């Protein structure tokens, strides 16, 4: 049957890409393999009559999250792992044994699912449609939804404060507009030499006082 064939194709693609991701030494290649896993999983979601989740999978996972990961890989200029470390020697068999235990556990669960007595209802259902997901999300599960938005806010603040470049900076050092602006308490007070208050009327005047030549000024002069 067609669905069986499609399942075999996409499941094989997912498992192959996952193994390639783990076996790959170059992080960039692993990231691309992970995108393959995400896309084949999205195809499986379509076969499971969940088109909304499939679309979100492609947009959020294969789009946003993987772009973030690849951006960080390229930002940090990660090289391939070169040396085979001492740690791997006993970790590899340990990983295989743990994986075997996990698979055995899952086979037990699968067996109990197959022998259960539940029979699904009619074939007609609107389970995966966007409207039914929206109704569920905004009625029964409104509180988890709101908590999720707070979680995202926390993630924004946390990521910004973690990735900020902390460092001591003198008050008189130049701060170019568009560069990272540091909090005043990080600034080193020893660098203060002239504390005379200065009043300026325009931005261009202030820029000239600070020694920052704005592009507009140089255009006007030249």
């Amino acid at each position, binding site marked *: 049957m067609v669905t069986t064939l499609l399942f075999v194709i996409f499941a094989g693609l997912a498992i192959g890409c996952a193994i390639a991701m783990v076996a790959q030494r170059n992080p960039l290649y692993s990231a691309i393999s992970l995108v393959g896993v995400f896309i084949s999983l999205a195809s499986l979601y379509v076969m499971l009559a969940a088109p909304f989740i499939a679309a979100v999978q492609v947009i959020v996972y294969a789009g946003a999250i993987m772009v*973030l990961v690849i951006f960080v890989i390229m930002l940090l200029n990660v090289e391939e792992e070169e040396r085979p470390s001492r740690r791997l020697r006993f970790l590899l068999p340990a990983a295989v044994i743990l994986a075997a235990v996990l*698979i055995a556990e899952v086979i037990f669960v699968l067996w109990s699912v197959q022998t259960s007595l539940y029979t699904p209802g009619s074939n007609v259902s609107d389970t995966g449609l966007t409207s039914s997901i929206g109704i*569920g999300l905004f009625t029964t599960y409104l509180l988890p939804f709101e908590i999720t938005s707070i979680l995202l806010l926390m993630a924004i603040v946390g990521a910004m404060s973690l990735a900020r470049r902390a460092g001591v900076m003198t008050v008189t050092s130049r701060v170019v507009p568009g560069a990272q602006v540091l909090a005043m308490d990080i600034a080193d007070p020893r660098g203060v030499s002239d504390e005379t208050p200065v009043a300026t009327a325009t931005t261009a005047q202030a820029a000239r006082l600070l020694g920052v030549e704005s592009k507009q000024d140089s255009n006007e002069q030249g």
Partner: protein
Amino acid sequence: MGPQLSWYLALSAVLFTIGVVGVIIKRNVIGMFMCIELMLNAVNLTFVGFSSYFRDVTGQLFVFIVMTVAAAEAAVGLGIIIAIFRNRESLDVDDASILRL
């Protein structure tokens, strides 16, 4: 006869196991991070499979929330990775074994 629920569960189990093995044997922080994403996706597949089997939308709502958590984890985790790299000049987990930057 199309694909059964148990097929999807088996696929999900295999993917999750590959993710666990990856987290154990990888030394690169970003590699471990991607293996965790793989495990989250395996669990998502289980949720969607059960949801479509029982004709209940709750499983797909859970997938939605898991994706949000994964996005938040990606943002914060990559922030931590950048902070560690800035201080240690390395992404090896063995080099970052003490709990301070």
